[in-house]
């Protein structure tokens, strides 16, 4: 009993879902709901969107190109800094760069553009440095790619991890203080005002990654992931495509870094450790390596659990249960155990390597337990439809057998001609394939 929706229906459903989501965020962000949980909801949405973007970018590398890279935190760090440095208002430079005589950059792009173009300049002033952050990171990533991409899987992982650590030390270096503020936090830079902003930017970027993956270049990436040698034999230039994936992934990591800077309102190099890269990697794993929608879902789940739902485990009361073992740190233990369970018993993650599709969603929704109970009148219709489908399937199968035999015959007689096959083989069984 499978339903196939029309493309128009799918598009409409997507539009409605996105619109509802944005309205919900807008409403919650502007305090239209009472109850302070909504504040936390907004925080989780913002942070989740940012991590969804960086997870998707990591998935592009690890899941779609098969490059096990662990440099994502370093690239985020760089993106965050290059955004922040150029948007600190001139008046705040003395406070921010308090140990470096106000730094060497005494202006803010946002202010310059604002003076010229008003409010449009303000947004352009946020947007341009963000893009610049992405481009700068992409450029550095290209330089790193030249030596690093020659390495095999695990060496690559450790080398990229090393580069991230080097970047971190570099940004904390006192000598660069007039630009990076050394070990001290950068703050007071321009940030977004509405939670809609990171959601939309991250959404657009993820959509671009999605489009890329479904282009011929995306196919080339997947080919490299599946079999480097065969891909090369198909005329795919390994270095060109690997570095392309690496650079594009870094670009988006840079953008997400800029968004993270805006979210946090202060930025310092300290938190961008290997630990952070591991967390991004675990998001990718939870969502499913090779599924962009999985990474998005994973990011929101991870953020919500870590920052919100499981916080009670640290303070001794969770789900109404109070216990002495729930003291600070317990949340992280539970969390780590959950992740290990996913890694060991559920290695494909939430989405496997499938993407979200309305077809599957609708079919899953109909097949969930309780669905039939909920609409008893549909029960009969369903069973009838199922019976009908079964007969249709049987007929189709019989026909397919004939066709197969037919085509076999044709093959033996030379190059067979096209014979359309009934659609019965295309039935998607969600529980088996998409679990």
């Amino acid at each position: 009993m499978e339903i196939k929706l029309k493309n128009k229906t799918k598009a409409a459903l997507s539009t409605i879902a996105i619109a509802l989501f944005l309205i919900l965020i807008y409403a919650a962000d502007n305090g239209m709901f009472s109850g302070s949980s909504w504040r936390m909801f907004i925080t989780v949405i913002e942070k989740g969107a940012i991590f969804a973007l960086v997870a998707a970018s990591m998935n592009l590398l690890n899941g779609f190109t098969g490059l096990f890279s662990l440099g994502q935190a370093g690239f985020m760090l760089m993106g965050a800094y290059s955004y922040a440095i150029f948007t600190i208002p001139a008046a705040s430079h003395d406070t921010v760069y308090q140990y470096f005589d106000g730094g060497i950059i005494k202006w803010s792009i946002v202010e310059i553009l604002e003076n010229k173009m008003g409010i449009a300049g303000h947004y352009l002033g946020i947007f341009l440095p963000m893009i610049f952050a992405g481009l700068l990171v992409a450029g550095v990533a290209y330089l790193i790619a030249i030596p690093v991409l020659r390495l095999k899987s695990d060496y690559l992982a450790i080398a990229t991890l090393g580069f991230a650590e080097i970047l971190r030390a570099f940004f904390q270096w006192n000598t660069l203080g007039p630009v990076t503020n050394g070990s001290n936090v950068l703050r007071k830079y321009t940030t977004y005002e509405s939670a809609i902003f990171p959601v939309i930017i991250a959404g657009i970027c993820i959509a671009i990654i999605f489009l890329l993956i479904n282009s011929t270049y995306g196919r080339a990436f997947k080919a490299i992931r599946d079999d480097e040698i065969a891909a090369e034999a198909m005329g795919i230039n390994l270095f060109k495509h690997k570095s392309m994936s690496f650079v594009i992934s870094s670009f988006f990591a840079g953008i997400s870094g800029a968004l993270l800077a805006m979210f946090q309102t202060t930025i310092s190099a300290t938190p961008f450790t290997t630990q952070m890269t591991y967390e991004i990697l675990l998001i990718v794993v939870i969502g499913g390596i090779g599924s962009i929608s999985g990474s998005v879902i994973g990011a929101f789940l991870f953020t919500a659990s870590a920052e919100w739902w499981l916080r009670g485990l640290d303070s001794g009361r969770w789900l109404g249960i109070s216990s002495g073992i729930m003291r600070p740190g317990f949340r992280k233990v539970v969390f780590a155990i959950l992740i290990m369970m996913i890694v060991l018993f559920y290695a494909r993650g939430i989405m496997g390597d499938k993407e979200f599709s309305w077809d599957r969603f609708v079919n899953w929704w109909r097949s969930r337990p309780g669905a039939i109970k909920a609409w008893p009148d549909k029960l009969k219709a369903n069973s009838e439809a199922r019976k009908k489908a079964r007969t249709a399937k049987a007929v189709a199968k019989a026909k397919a057998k004939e066709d197969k035999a037919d085509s076999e015959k044709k093959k033996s007689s030379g190059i067979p001609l096209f014979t359309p096959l009934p659609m019965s083989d295309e039935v998607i069984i969600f529980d088996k394939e998409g679990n």
Partner: protein
Amino acid sequence: MKKITVLSLILMLAMTAFVGCGGGSGADEDTVRIGVFEPASGDNGAGGKQEVLGIQYANSVQPTVEIDGKEYKVELVIVDNESDNSKAVTAAESLVSQDVSIVLGSYGSGVSIAAADTFAKAGMPAVGVSCTNPQVTADCDVYFRICFLDPFQGTVLANYAYENGMRKAYCLSKLGDDYSVGLVNYFVEAFKELGGEVVEEQFPDKNSDFTSYVANAKKAGCDVFFSPVSTEAAALIIDQAEAQSLGMPILAGDTWDSNVITGAAKGKNVEIVVTTFYQEGGNPEFDEGIKAWFDENPEAVTNNGGNTDLAAVTALGYDAYFVALEAFKAAGSTDPADILKVLPTLEVTGLVCGDVSFNETGDANKSEAFVKKCNTEDGTWEFIKKQTAN
């Protein structure tokens, strides 16, 4: 089937978020909540916990407050900011979302700076307990603090060093740590002005090998080893100083006024001098009270590092709690906005670490720091003098 299990699990979690936390927000009418924004883990975990102890002790001493003629029970909402600037924002947000009336904290300036904008956005008054970096209150209307500042402390330390004949200082700070880098900076500024000479170095995150830094200080022929770093690193530095016979006093700021240091230095041939907020024995009543409280709460002793020696930040935490209560009384309301209005003019007396009033940036008006020296024989602090910036 698996899918359904996972999904129901997720749904269950999601429910708890709204139910669990939401349940909290619908608190009793007669309860007022104080948010405690402190690290319980990470680099500053030890100090953060000691600061929380002071607040908790104060809460046990004075669990209620009378606001506008009505008796309120005071409830503490404690979150862990993990000593991590990126986690600090969400931790702060979770406090705001739990309807606290005022926030106290944090130990370590970085997290306070990171959270300042979140509190500002929510109009939530915050009182810094031991965050000494000037940036915490600068450009932030909601942040106040009851301790002195790094420029002041740096100058005090430089004065002390110069007055005691030290002319060349080795300054060690931790890369990426605003507190130590900032304090070293002010120290260097003041020390150079006095005519001293300095050697500056920084050690990277997660470093535990201080052999070479100690060797560097010896090589450079310095007279004093200034390293106002976290207590974690401090213990390792003391250890190496002993192993290599450093031969010069170690000077540090308020973070070192902790039993971690006295514990590490006990029985070792090192000289440690610190500046701090609180003079032990300055208020015997408080000292005795908290020791008795420790006796009743074994968990508090664990959080204090396994013994009942007092840290300065515990005393400051105690003071911060009472500042918050006074703010409630003065505002006559539990609404953050009302509290914010009365804070700039608030004056609190009778505290353990000296009276508190705020200047226009929101900093406490404090003009002297206590200089203490570690007695390495019995592992206690000895009061030396009160030192001013001039």
